[in-house]
């Protein structure tokens, strides 16, 4: 039994539902003797389902996605009525296939690309022999929404002539048949709408979509699939190794002599297309017979379909359709891997487990009946012709004929993840399994779009694809896709775990318009799931030069390949992609490989390739002129490493100091130590702008531009416990200060410039300024100490004690944990910094604690399901926005399982306490193993309106970003980092030259000062640190006008402060001594003097307080 949850559900904050009654049974009911039935049910839940909650969730989900009885009845009526109409259609005249005027003149277009045009044969319309419902509706495994009925319409034998199997003739007739159906149905009053679409995106298989009206208002979508009557063709004719499209016909050449069929290239795709029609009935009957009305099996299939659909795998050409899934379940039933008595949960679980264990690309499976027909193809025939093999009941058709091996690998990969989810004790597995969508752009770390122009065909000969092009009847995109994927798979090797093309939903068009051209899309999207261990390797090592494989390796890589000597003395072929670049270039090595290989193998030019991976890296780049020995600033990873090294040295020095008490632990607590500082600090060695200075320090001057921002880095040293500390807080503060003086002295002996402060020591080391703070836990205890009236000494949390505990215990711990996380997942830093940059860019960083953002991103990395751990900052950032905007903050706690320390009981307890105490807990409730119930970091912020706005901004940003990524050419990716300014009542514009972080701004202006780093600026004077006039200004504004307005600003170089008046500001008030600040008297209607906010004076104050910093103030009406 996996889960349980306490009762007492309060109504969630912000929703207006009435509070639900407590789920508490009366004592009598609880202790009633159990009935047999009940015992059975309880046992069944334990045996057949994951847990009782899971069982309930499944049944709720099923009732949500399955068709209601009422709807089913209506659909049945519709099918019946349509069948009546179809069977009574009048017979048509005989026409030449090529003569279609009789049809087209009434406005109907044949839904097929008739290319080449010349086809022999006659078409004669006869009413269908039969029209029956097939597909998921019959087996009751439909999944809402977009439910349609599939109806098989049997073309009478008489319509088919000899030789119709050849040269598209069957496909033509089928299309013509559909057109005639459309023409006849058009007159029917009950037919609301008529459209064509392609069955599973196969452009040879149009289907007619009839929107049928029942009972005057209910609409039912019915797809009509024409199939030839049994006995029209010999199934053997379409053996996958036979040829049914003569190349000379296709190329428009005259037949050269008496060509023997056997010598012609086989047409497996075309044959399978026809076979699909021929075997439709057999497979349908087989499916029905095997499922035997077992509700467990049906529900299991429905669940699997939901699972597929959430992963966008079940539609379009090459999709792993619901039909394949149903057939697979049937296969497992026939193999006795499943049985009809199993529960839906067991069916689903076992199917997924079997899926992970099988590999249809090498060992195809078959449903073929033992007493099959003669001449059926062998398994190896199938493997020679198709990527993925799953043979149907007849033994002739591979129902996975359009699925490529990459899609199949993706399905298997997803199945593996699903099993992982089911095995996790976590409560949310149901949600990740069935409820959370897994869209393509969130699944894959990198993507690229290719524009496939028909220039590609020129490279087909070289790739050996010309014959396949005939087979696929001109769809060059689908023809070359598997080859492209194979080549890329080879080129990328270990760098990627998974490579998959995005499936494209088939087009739909009106019966009166001409069908879309083939291929109906010229755009391919391929996703890469990176393996972080290898994806940024700069070098691909090939075989040793003297081996035979070396030649192949050389040929594959072409000019990029070179001989290199390696450290172990071997000389190997190798490809070098980037020599010593920054992390930001290394992250994009896959893009280099893809670009190179596509160019080399397909002749694809750069302009037709659109690689998506590092689009947001620019936001993490800090422009800076560097003179001297410093690595270039890419996205800051190198600089973080540099400061870490200096910090390590400092730690060593600190540990060696001879203090009266030893230092137990040293931990930096500034964001840079958890890799979350958006812009890594550089040593404070900037070209002088002219500072003032006293004898030890450089000082800012009001009449000069503000010095470049250089922050101090906090380091907390926890001292060992000792009984000698005084029991008085005031005395303790002084003893600590004395300690700091001592530390400063000792550091100074180490030739480090220092500055003593009462609560810390500033140390200048290698250009970085560290703020060393001594701390000890005794102080927390003292702050907590209270004495009750009866003399009992109690420990009670106070505001100060909590703040101190946060500072010297929680933050260091969290910092080291997140540092550890970064060591495991190297894209964590990039993601978290993008997230922080985004929050700041929305001018919300003062209202949303940065630690909360850090923790949310950590959650994405620790609990990535239903995805894998993000492999690039871009996808990580998108998932952050998704989490922020879709998480149900009001009713669920966000549990961040840092270091995986939570036990099952912990999780249950957190959830139950959360629901019980919801109303008293912070809005954004984050729980970590070190802080289970208090949500330390989000206690005060964000507030409800801020959180609401944040969520809104996140979902809007996500929308914009997704759109941009769909077509990244010429897109401005900074767009979502520009805050909308129209919501603010007052805008305070700041002087550009007084902004110490102006170079970090989202948009650089012409007058932006780019700082100049110089190695040789050697000064023993303390640099100006932590001096940001804007921050001081904001602090003053908030201290004075907190009751009137909120102030918003982008910390990273924002040149405007947005002000929003609080809603009650404009309400006149009675005179009250406590509420007169910045109010002015105003005569009211009733002769009573009232007070109103003195807005003009306040705005004037904004200017006064920010003297020298404020450029102008814009008040909006």
């Amino acid at each position, binding site marked *: 039994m996996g889960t349980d949850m306490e009762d007492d559900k309060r109504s969630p904050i912000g*929703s207006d539902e009435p509070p639900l009654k407590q789920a508490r049974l009366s004592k009598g009911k609880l*202790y009633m003797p159990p009935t047999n039935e009940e015992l059975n049910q309880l046992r069944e839940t334990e045996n057949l389902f994951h847990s009782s909650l899971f069982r309930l969730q499944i049944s709720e989900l099923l009732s949500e996605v399955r068709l209601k009885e009422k709807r089913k009845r209506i659909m049945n009526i519709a099918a019946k009525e349509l069948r009546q109409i179809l069977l009574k259609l009048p017979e048509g005249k005989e026409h030449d296939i090529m003569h279609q005027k009789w049809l087209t003149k009434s406005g109907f277009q044949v839904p097929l690309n008739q290319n080449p045009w010349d086809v022999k044969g006659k078409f004669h319309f006869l009413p269908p022999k039969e029209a029956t419902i097939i597909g998921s509706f019959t087996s009751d495994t439909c999944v809402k929404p977009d439910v349609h009925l599939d109806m098989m319409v049997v073309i009478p034998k008489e319509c088919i002539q000899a030789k119709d199997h050849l040269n598209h003739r069957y496909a033509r007739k089928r299309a013509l048949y559909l057109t005639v159906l459309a023409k006849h149905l058009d007159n029917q009053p009950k037919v609301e709408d008529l459209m064509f679409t392609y069955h599973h995106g196969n452009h040879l298989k149009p289907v007619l979509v009839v929107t049928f009206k029942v009972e005057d208002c209910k609409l039912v979508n019915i797809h009509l699939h024409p199939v030839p009557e049994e006995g029209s063709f010999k199934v053997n004719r379409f053996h996958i190794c036979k040829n049914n499209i003569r190349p000379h016909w296709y190329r428009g050449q005259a037949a050269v002599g008496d060509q023997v069929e056997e010598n012609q290239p086989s047409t497996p795709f075309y044959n399978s297309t026809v076979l699909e029609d021929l075997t439709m009935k057999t497979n349908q009957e087989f499916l029905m017979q095997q499922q035997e009305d077992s509700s467990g099996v049906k529900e299991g299939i429905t669940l699997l379909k939901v699972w597929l659909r959430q992963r966008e795998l079940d539609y379009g050409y090459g999709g792993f359709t619901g039909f394949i899934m149903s057939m697979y379940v049937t296969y497992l039933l026939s193999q006795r891997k499943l049985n009809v008595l199993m529960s839906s949960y067991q069916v689903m679980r076992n199917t997924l487990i079997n899926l992970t264990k099988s590999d249809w690309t090498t060992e195809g499976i078959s449903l073929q009946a033992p007493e099959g027909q003669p001449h059926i193809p062998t398994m190896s025939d199938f493997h020679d012709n198709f990527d993925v093999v799953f043979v149907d009941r007849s033994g002739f058709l591979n129902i996975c004929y359009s699925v490529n091996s990459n899609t199949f690998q993706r399905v298997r990969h997803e199945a593996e993840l699903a099993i992982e989810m089911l095995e996790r004790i976590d409560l949310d597995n149901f949600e990740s399994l069935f409820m959370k969508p897994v869209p393509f752009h969130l699944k894959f770390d990198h993507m690229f779009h290719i524009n496939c122009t028909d220039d590609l065909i020129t490279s087909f000969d070289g790739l050996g694809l010309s014959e396949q092009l005939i087979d696929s009847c001109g769809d060059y995109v689908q023809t070359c896709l598997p080859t492209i994927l194979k080549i890329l798979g080879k080129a990328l090797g270990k760098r990627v775990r998974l490579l998959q093309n995005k499936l494209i939903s088939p087009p739909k068009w009106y019966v009166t318009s001409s069908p879309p051209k083939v291929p109906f899309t010229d755009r391919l999207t391929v996703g890469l799931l990176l393996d972080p261990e290898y994806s940024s390797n700069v070098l691909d090592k090939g075989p040793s030069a003297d081996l035979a494989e070396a030649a192949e390796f050389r040929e594959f890589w072409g000019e990029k390949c070179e001989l290199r000597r390696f450290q172990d003395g071997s000389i190997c072929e190798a490809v070098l992609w980037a020599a010593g670049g920054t992390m930001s270039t290394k992250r994009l090595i896959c893009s280099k490989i893809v670009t190179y290989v596509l160019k080399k193998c397909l002749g694809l030019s750069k302009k037709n390739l659109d690689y998506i991976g590092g689009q947001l890296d620019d936001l993490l780049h800090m422009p800076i002129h560097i003179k001297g020995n410093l690595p270039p600033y890419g996205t800051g990873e190198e600089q973080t490493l540099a400061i870490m090294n200096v910090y390590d040295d400092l730690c060593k020095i600190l540990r060696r100091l001879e203090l009266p008490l030893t230092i137990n632990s040293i931990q930096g607590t500034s964001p840079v130590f958890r890799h979350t500082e958006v812009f890594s600090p550089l040593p404070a060695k900037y070209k002088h702008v002219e500072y003032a200075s006293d004898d030890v320090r450089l000082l800012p001057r009001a009449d000069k531009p503000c010095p470049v921002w250089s922050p101090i880095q906090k380091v907390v040293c926890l001292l060992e416990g000792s009984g000698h500390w005084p029991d008085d807080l005031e005395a303790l503060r*002084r003893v600590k200060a004395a300690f700091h003086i001592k530390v400063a002295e000792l550091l100074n002996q180490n030739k480090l410039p220092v*500055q003593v*402060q009462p609560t810390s020591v500033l140390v200048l080391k290698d250009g970085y300024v560290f703020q060393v703070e001594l701390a000890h836990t005794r102080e927390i205890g003292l702050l907590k100490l209270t004495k009750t009236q009866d003399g009992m*000494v109690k420990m009670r949390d106070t505001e100060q004690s909590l703040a101190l505990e946060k500072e010297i215990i929680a933050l260091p711990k969290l910092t080291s944990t997140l540092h550890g996380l970064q060591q495991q997942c190297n894209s964590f830093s990039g993601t978290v910094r993008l997230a922080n940059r985004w929050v700041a860019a929305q001018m919300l960083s003062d209202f949303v604690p940065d630690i909360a953002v850090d923790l949310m991103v950590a959650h994405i990395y620790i609990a990535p399901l239903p995805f894998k751990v993000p492999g690039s900052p871009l996808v990580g950032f998108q998932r952050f926005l998704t989490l922020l905007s879709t998480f149900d903050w009001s009713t669920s706690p966000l549990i961040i399982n840092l270091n995986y320390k939570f036990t099952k009981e912990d999780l249950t307890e957190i959830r139950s306490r959360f629901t019980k105490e919801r109303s008293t807990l912070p809005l954004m409730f984050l729980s970590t193993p070190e802080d289970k119930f208090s949500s330390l970091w989000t206690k005060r912020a964000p507030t409800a309106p801020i959180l609401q706005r944040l969520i809104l901004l996140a979902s809007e940003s996500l929308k914009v970003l997704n759109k941009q990524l769909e077509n990244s050419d010429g897109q401005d990716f900074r767009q979502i980092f520009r805050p909308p300014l129209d919501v603010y009542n007052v805008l305070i514009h700041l002087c550009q030259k007084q902004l110490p972080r102006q170079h970090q701004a989202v948009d650089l202006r012409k007058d932006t000062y780019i700082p100049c780093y110089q190695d040789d600026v050697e000064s023993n004077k303390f640099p100006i640190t932590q001096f940001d006039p804007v921050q001081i200004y904001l602090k003053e504004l908030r*201290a004075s006008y907190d009751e009137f307005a909120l102030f918003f600003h982008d910390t990273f170089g924002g040149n405007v402060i947005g002000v929003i008046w609080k809603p009650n500001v404009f309400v006149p008030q009675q005179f009250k001594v406590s509420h007169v600040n910045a109010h002015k008297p105003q005569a009211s209607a009733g002769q009573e003097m009232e007070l109103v906010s003195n807005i003009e004076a306040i705005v004037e104050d904004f200017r006064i307080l920010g*003297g020298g910093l404020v450029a102008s103030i814009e008040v909006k009406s």
Partner: protein
Amino acid sequence: MSATGKYGSVVVQGFSVVPVKFSEKSKAAHYLYLKEHTVRDSDAHKPKNRTLFVLSVPPYCTEESLRRVFTQCGKVQRVYLHRKPTAGLPVLDSSKYFPATPPIQGFKVAYIVFKDPKSIQRAKNLPYDKPLILSTPEHPLLIGLNKWCKEYEENVVDVREMQTEIDNFMAKFDQKQEEELRKAKENEGVPDEEGWVTVTRVGKKKGIPRTEALDKKAKEKERKKRKEKELLNFYTFQNRENKRDEIAKLRKKFEEDKQRIVLMKASRKFRPY
């Protein structure tokens, strides 16, 4: 309850309203609300009839500027600034490096002590249409960048001075502690009026300190002891009850799960797409 004062001044709820501007150039004015300081327990530092109570003092206003603008009503003896109205004195920080209270920011209240009681009336009659000017070319107020640069410059510690301060404080502190210890020792074993003797830590029999942690520990110990004595799974009824409880637990959980589902359903958690 409002009326226009005799000399063009405005009075709200007994407070005269006096406009105040930052400088001559400022377009908008703030309004000070002033009144004679009256409290039951008057303080010697804020004498009853000579002290003016001022509300809504703007953030950039300093003691000096207030003194300057109110000198027109008579000689100003002292100006006290507070965060909120208080009868007592502001906490005076004896220590430069270890301030007991953070500096006052934002709007504040002021108490202005005049030499002459008549000045109060003069101040109350200040006209409504003629704002006081806080920052004049001769006596400018330090604001904005200038102020911040100056603060940065002043934010430096004289190590020797601080060390001396610490030493002095600690010497006094130690002395005080010794004094207390001495007193405690003296009183050890001496009964109070009712004849009770307090057990202290300095006596021969040191009592257990009364802390919450120790209290808890003792209770826990007792509970454990009691539990050890108990026999479980011994009597048939215990077994039977255990089984019954088991089923009851399952039922309860099932019921709770159902409740959870209802909640989830309400928040539309079962619409997959």
